[in-house]
């Protein structure tokens, strides 16, 4: 069942072998008004996405087919890095190599801060790399990637759709918490359409709040080894 032209609802597929982390990410995403599906492995994720073994970008077959191979429309995949059998990186690669799936933005999560790992993922096409535990402030950064993915799809499919309606507020700010940073202002704005092919355009969204000491990585602003 496709979500069709429903512009105000994004569907996120979350992949993590840890039950607790799946619960967490699901709650975080639902709080931000996304529709969420969670799976516990990369192979289940690919199955859900309708991935096919021979569905690669560099085949001779034309990949401009209008119909989507996906069973269900997914607007973003967020996956843990460390998983048995298929890592988040493997999953990312398979998605980016697939002609039908490569435009789906992918975000990687990891509990370990390993610059070479982060680099590798970003170079393979991940939009963002979040350190665990993932916070609401991280999830707030997903919106531009989702919007871009939606716009790209709209360009690639046939009739031009009306521009997305006013973005829903991700969540009402929680009461009395000194530690929670206020929602980033850019969620309320319409994102201007960027040149669609360069996914790694610097997403300078005001970066991380001053009270976060751990680095957040996006775009190519990376520490080298």
């Amino acid at each position, binding site marked *: 069942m496709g979500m069709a032209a429903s512009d105000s609802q994004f569907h996120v597929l979350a992949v993590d072998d*840890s*039950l*607790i*982390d799946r*619960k*967490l990410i699901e*709650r*975080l995403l*639902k*709080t931000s008004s996304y529709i969420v599906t969670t799976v516990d492995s990369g192979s289940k994720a690919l199955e859900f996405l309708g991935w096919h073994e021979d569905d690669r970008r560099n085949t001779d077959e034309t990949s401009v087919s209008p119909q989507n191979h996906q069973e269900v429309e997914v607007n973003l995949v967020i996956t843990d890095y*460390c998983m048995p059998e298929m890592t988040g990186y493997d999953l990312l690669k398979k998605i980016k190599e697939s002609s039908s799936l490569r435009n789906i933005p992918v975000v990687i999560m990891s*509990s370990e801060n390993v610059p070479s790992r982060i680099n590798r993922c970003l170079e393979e096409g991940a939009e963002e790399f979040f350190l*665990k*535990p993932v*916070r*609401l402030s991280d999830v707030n950064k997903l919106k531009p990637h989702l919007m871009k993915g939606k716009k790209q799809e709209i360009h690639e499919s046939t009739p031009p759709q009306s521009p997305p309606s006013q973005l829903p507020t991700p969540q009402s700010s*929680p009461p009395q*918490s000194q*530690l*929670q940073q206020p929602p980033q202002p850019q969620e309320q704005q319409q994102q201007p359409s960027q040149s669609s092919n360069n996914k790694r355009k610097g997403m300078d969204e005001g970066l991380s709040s001053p009270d976060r000491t751990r680095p957040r990585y996006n775009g190519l602003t990376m520490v080298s080894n």
Partner: protein
Amino acid sequence: MLGFGAERLRADMNRLLALLFHQGVLDEQFLQLQQLQDESSPNFVSEVVNIYFHESEKLLRNLRGLLLDREFSDYNKMGIHLNQFMGSSSSIGANRVRNVCVAFRAASEQSNRPGCFRALELLEYEYCYLKNKLHELFQIEQQRILAAAVRYPPVQHPLNNP
């Protein structure tokens, strides 16, 4: 007395939470969990914490089983359990438990068996302490909810004054 019960219980909860933060038993990730709880997901924190308890006890049993095995040598497997324990502890804000896991993992990477034993005992201790305190917290929360409900009875059916 009924009306004051809820307030006092809330104060008790906050005091306990403050203590746990002060002791480093919990960190701000726990607050994040609380913030994710709302009317649409009113039991979120206890749900997640109960999953954590269930998983942790299984991991502790596995770890103990590995170490007690006289022919044990699979430190790799131990590392896998510890990574899982570390991850889940970090996700719920169980700061001290996570820190012990880090030390435990270091001992495991050095194939330091006595060090692993010590770490395991410490881990079991910290986990027990955390579990007790969280149960206490949930109990107070339950009582507070009850007390608050009694304080604001439904208006349609006014009680007869005793």
